[in-house]
């Protein structure tokens, strides 16, 4: 039974849970300071989580926009979830800005230590300097927030009136967002992540990070969808839609593995120290995470989602999505920690787990708040009806 005007209502129980999670996060942060966790490690954790959940927001919006410009019918039905994920982008921006301004920049990035830059880093000063870094920061968030705002605005206007003129605007902004994100996702990953290992470089890096986030974002979308369905919403979404999302998760996981292999193999093969230093560190001090990363993000989704049936229900898809969500958090962990904290000072403990739980809560808070603001079903979307009738033979 499809209830076209159904709206999401944040229940008391759910909001208690969310506040609890946020509370755990704040508490963990405090505890981390008290137990004398290194400032680098706390900063790195904050960066990890702000970036991770920012990326989930961006991916949520990316999935909405890319399907819009590709004129995909089926995706319309779950469009609201992606839009809501996007609502976290400004929050992440503020948190990240606070982190950088209050010492994080100096703690995390070697290139800010202007007094002792070596020959290589001196060559990069034109790009890696604090003012320019903040300018870029402002540009990224400025563009994302503005575009996210208009996309959401026209999506809602379209839903209200069904006027195709809003549909066209929605599409235009979607296209602009996709193009913008194609560039900014790459450069922002250089700025915030790659420049932690300031000497190192890899041309594939931006796409690698994006593919990681794409897989993770899809997993989160699936988790949210299944959660909403279990709460009794999204009745119009059937197994066919879930099947498609499952295929995405499968495909993006394989794509991530492909990029991982490409980058690793090429560096392994040429074995040029200026590049190998990166994996050398990860081999040496993060070897468990190095392999666990591959298992969680490739081996498990690949084999678990290979059959048709596993993708068509929540039984396998949900746990795999959770694994992938954790897996890519770990992936990000091993992108950040070796450079920012180092092998000895880092670990996985209260700061990591607690702060991450806090961020999950924060993320859910904004997503649900956003979901509650508009009908879950974009019933006036010109492709909505296609989405309802959607079924596929494979």
């Amino acid at each position, binding site marked *: 039974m499809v209830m076209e005007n159904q709206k999401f209502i944040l229940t008391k129980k759910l909001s208690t849970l969310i506040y609890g999670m946020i509370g755990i996060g704040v508490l963990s942060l405090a505890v981390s300071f008290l137990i004398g966790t290194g400032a680098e490690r706390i900063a790195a954790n904050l960066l990890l989580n702000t970036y991770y959940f920012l990326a989930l927001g961006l991916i949520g919006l990316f999935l909405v926009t890319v399907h819009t410009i590709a004129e995909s019918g089926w995706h319309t039905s779950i469009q609201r979830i992606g839009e809501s994920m996007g609502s976290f982008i400004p929050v992440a921006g503020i948190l990240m800005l606070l982190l950088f301004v209050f010492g994080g920049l100096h703690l995390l990035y070697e290139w800010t230590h202007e007094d002792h830059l070596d020959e290589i880093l001196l060559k990069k000063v034109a790009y890696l300097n604090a003012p320019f870094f903040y300018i870029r920061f402002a540009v990224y968030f400025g563009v994302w927030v503005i575009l996210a705002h208009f996309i959401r605005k026209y999506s809602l206007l379209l839903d209200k009136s069904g006027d*195709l003129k809003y549909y066209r605007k929605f599409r235009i902004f979607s296209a602009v967002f996709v*193009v913008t994100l194609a560039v900014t996702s790459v450069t922002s990953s250089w700025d915030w992540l790659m420049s932690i290992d300031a000497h190192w470089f890899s041309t*594939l890096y931006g796409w690698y990070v994006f593919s990681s986030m794409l897989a993770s974002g899809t997993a989160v979308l699936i988790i949210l969808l299944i959660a909403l369905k279990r709460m009794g919403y999204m009745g119009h979404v059937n197994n066919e839609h879930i099947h498609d999302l499952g295929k995405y998760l499968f495909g993006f996981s394989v794509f991530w593995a*492909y990029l991982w292999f*490409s980058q690793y193999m*090429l560096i392994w093969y040429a074995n*040029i120290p*200026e590049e190998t230093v990166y994996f050398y560190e990860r081999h040496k001090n993060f070897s468990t995470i190095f392999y666990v990363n591959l298992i969680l993000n490739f081996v498990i989704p690949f084999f678990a989602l290979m059959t048709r049936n596993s993708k068509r229900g929540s039984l396998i898809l949900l746990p795999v999505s959770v694994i992938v969500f954790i897996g890519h958090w770990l992936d990000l962990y091993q992108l950040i920690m070796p450079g920012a904290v180092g092998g000895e000072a880092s670990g996985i403990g209260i700061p990591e787990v607690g702060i991450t739980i806090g961020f999950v809560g924060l993320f859910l808070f904004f997503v649900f708040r956003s979901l509650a603001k508009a009908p879950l079903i974009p019933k006036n979307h010109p492709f909505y009806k296609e989405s309802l009738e959607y079924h596929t033979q*494979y």
Partner: protein
Amino acid sequence: MYTSPLREPLIRGNKNYKQVTDDVLSPMAGKPSKYWYAGITLAGIALLFGGWATFRTVFYGIGEWGLNKTIGWGWGITNFVWWVGIGHAGTFISAILLLFRQKWRTSINRSAEAMTLIAVMCAGFFPLIHMGRLLLGFYIFPYPNTRSLWVNFNSPLLWDVFAISTYFAVSLIFWYVGLIPDLGTVRDRAKTKIRKAIYGFLSFGWTGSARHWSRHETVSLILAGLAAPLVLSVHTIVSFDFATSVIPGWHTTIFPPYFVSGAIFSGFAMVLTLMIVTRKALNLEDYITLNHIESMNKVIILTGSIVGIAYLTEFFMAWYSGVEFETYAFFNRAFGPYAWAYWIMMTCNVITPQLFWFRKIRRSVLLTFIISIFVNIGMWFERFVIVVTSLHRDFLPSSWTMYKPTVVEVGLYVGTLGLFFTLFLLFIRVFPVIAVAEVKGVLKSSGEQKKITDHE
């Protein structure tokens, strides 16, 4: 099935099934036109030129080419990568678009796949001919021998052997499995006994049974699922040829996805070039409509933009790396003696496809045709830039040299163009250029007649 009113019909002219069959099969009957004869004559001459160049290369040696002590690969490998790239569109269209359920693929997948197979043949010719000792080329296969030698599994060139041959084989069976029902159609409409016998043989005893269809669809789908990563892997491995090396301009991690993207980009351009001519020549405008062209143009913008971002990323990273060799290699590309090639590449690959953001241009057959040729040229130059400008000035300036192709190298390239068009012209004579059964399958949901009834 419900279709949004925003969607444009994929098949024009209110066709019924019979008309579809007639339209597609009619070019196979009857005598070829004089244009066809002119085309095949031209292609044949090009092929002869290539034959002469092949003889010179094999008999006298690679010295017949313009290579030297520093530049070991020139036009040969440039052409190889170019052809392989072109050979990506067909399988991409039939595999990945099938997975993405893009219905517009049905009108073009058959000929695109044929083009793929021919292009891969042309491509495969170059790694063979570029060997100094072609006659001992079989060393490349890991066969048991008296010296108990195997091959070097570390070598990307060896990976190429496996990748290209697997790709060709899988593409071939994919194409042929798809062709079988249509060959049945041809058989059943054959007028002469010989034709009936030949197509009867080729159609493998196809009856159109529901069971056959069911398994056929499964096979097509799984083959698509296999071919999709395969198509990525092929150009990935081709990119490994360069990226595993230590040569600045070659060794860069972005190569695998960027090469794949470039391959699809160039493949679509070649499909457009061919299809725009073919639809006109064979009166298939109702099947290969402006919507098809527009859809392909959208893929061209997408892949072209990815390629453009990759160019810029590479350029930025060359500077950002702080490695003097890297920085120099890219500076040299843009401002060195081969800068003209670089700027041709930039213009054709990055700037021209951006014109497709305009709907008018996207839907203009003439402009699309012109731009598709530009892209073909640009992508050839991309490979030339990668192969030659990276090699001609690498680490030790003492060994820097220049490269200029000889007439023999030109001959080999022209020869493969000749082979390509010869085989394509033969293909359109003997096989249905459009997947008849697949088009019929989407006729109801995407044909014009459906639209009309819907809106009545």
